[in-house]
């Protein structure tokens, strides 16, 4: 079913997809979230749920770094490793100069590759971790990403104390961080493919409607993934976009249908899963690097480990704007990266006893 590689790039399939023949394993994941995410429908699945949004830190930026450290700490602890066992760390966030990630990396003493891919960072960091592990440049790599509602509001919109009204199409930036340890050997779901997105811009300029801006990028990456790999819609149990939320998800669903890809109820969006929109006052839903990070690292990983899902396509979506560019009237370029995650063993046929549920399998 999977296409063969290109001449000169044997592990590249189609235009944009990489395959990982050694099937790097996600041996453990960790998540840390704020109170609102903890009160949401996925609340019980997170490793750390904070009672407030500042965690005793002096600024929202430090608070976000703090979350990333807690998520990474949970991931490392759950598989019985220490940071010294990690060869590399890929991390990124939404803040200027990705300070949440680099300030967290300052504490860890692990070789650090900083990423900026806006909210598509989780899929990008998973893809790069899998790539480094598959190519033999790392035995274990940490892929992580974070966002914080208040640090994002302060940077992209208004000072948090200002209390500006929110548009109905706006999305609530997730206060949360997710971390996954990708390893050459171990037990857990495996990463088999990654489709790295192209930057698309359909001319949307409203920073309060990122879902609409990002939907075409998500659709482009999904369609390209299916074309490159030769997978059919039935090969996936779930396709989850990162943070299109209500407005963007419905646009993406429509565009996919128009393009002839019928996912028949197997398409969802992490921004819709994380909050209870009718009761949590989050407008269109969740967004931010932390959105697909915590939904994947907690909820979707658990479903893979529980064997509810055999094969998952995680499509993290990013809006590549800056406060300067949208104030100057520029439109919002967008990107989406996809990774294929399969439960261990020859998917989709079930095998053996379930690994321990709870977000992370133990290293054998």
């Amino acid at each position, binding site marked *: 079913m999977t296409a063969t590689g290109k001449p000169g790039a044997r592990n590249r399939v189609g235009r944009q997809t990489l395959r990982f023949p050694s099937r790097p394993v996600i041996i453990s994941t960790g998540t840390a979230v704020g109170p609102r995410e903890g009160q949401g429908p996925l609340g019980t699945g997170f490793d750390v749920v904070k009672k407030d949004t500042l965690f005793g830190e*002096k*600024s929202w930026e430090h608070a976000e770094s703090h979350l990333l450290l807690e998520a990474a700490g949970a991931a490392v602890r759950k598989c019985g490793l220490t940071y010294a066992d990690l060869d590399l760390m890929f991390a990124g966030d939404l803040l200027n100069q990705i300070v949440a990630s680099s300030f967290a990396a300052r504490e860890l003493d692990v070789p650090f590759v900083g990423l900026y891919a806006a909210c598509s960072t989780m899929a990008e960091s998973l893809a790069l971790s899998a790539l480094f592990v598959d190519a033999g440049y790392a035995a274990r790599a940490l892929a992580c990403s974070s966002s914080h509602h208040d640090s994002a509001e302060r940077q992209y919109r*208004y000072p948090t*104390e200002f209390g500006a009204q929110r548009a109905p199409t706006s999305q609530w930036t997730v206060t949360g961080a997710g971390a996954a340890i990708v390893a050459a050997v171990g037990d857990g779901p495996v990463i088999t493919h990654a489709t790295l997105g192209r930057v698309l811009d359909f001319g949307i300029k*409203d920073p*309060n409607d990122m879902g609409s801006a990002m939907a075409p990028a998500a659709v482009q990456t999904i369609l390209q993934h299916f074309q490159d790999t030769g997978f059919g819609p039935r090969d996936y149990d779930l396709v989850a976009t990162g943070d299109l939320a209500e407005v963007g998800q419905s646009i993406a669903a429509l565009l996919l249908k128009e393009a002839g890809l019928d996912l028949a109820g197997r398409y969802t969006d992490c921004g819709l899963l994380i909050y209870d929109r009718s009761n949590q006052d989050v407008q269109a839903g969740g967004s931010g690097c932390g959105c697909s990070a915590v939904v994947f690292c907690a909820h979707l990983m658990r479903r893979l480990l529980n064997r509810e899902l055999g094969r998952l396509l995680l499509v993290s979506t990013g809006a590549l704007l800056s406060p300067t560019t949208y104030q100057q009237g520029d439109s919002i370029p967008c990107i989406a990266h996809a990774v294929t995650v399969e439960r261990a063993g020859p998917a989709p046929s079930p095998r053996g006893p379930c690994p321990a549920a709870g977000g992370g399998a133990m290293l054998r």
Partner: protein
Amino acid sequence: MTTATVLPFLQAFLVGGLICVAAQLFLDLTRVNPAYVMVLFVCLGAVLSGLGLYGPLVEAGGAGATVPLPGFGHSLYQGIIQDVTENGLSGLLTGGLKATALGVTAAVLSGLVIAAVFNPKG
């Protein structure tokens, strides 16, 4: 309480409320941000004042018309007219702030006090 004591409150509520409804509709139905709406409403108040339309609103609504942002524009315009009448053309530059000195100074002072007492985080 007699009708005569309640009526001014009711009028202020109606006039002030309608101004706020107009601003909210503008915010919800267009894609402008709150800062634009605020500036627009100050300018609108000055223009309406110049056309002689804001005075009657103030008479009818009292604080309901003077407290919202168009009331500030109205004060700017009326202050300039008064100062120009009394002191000549230099009033064009001085009249606006003279008339609104109370509001402007109160805003600056309360900003200073709040900044001194609280530690902003975002």
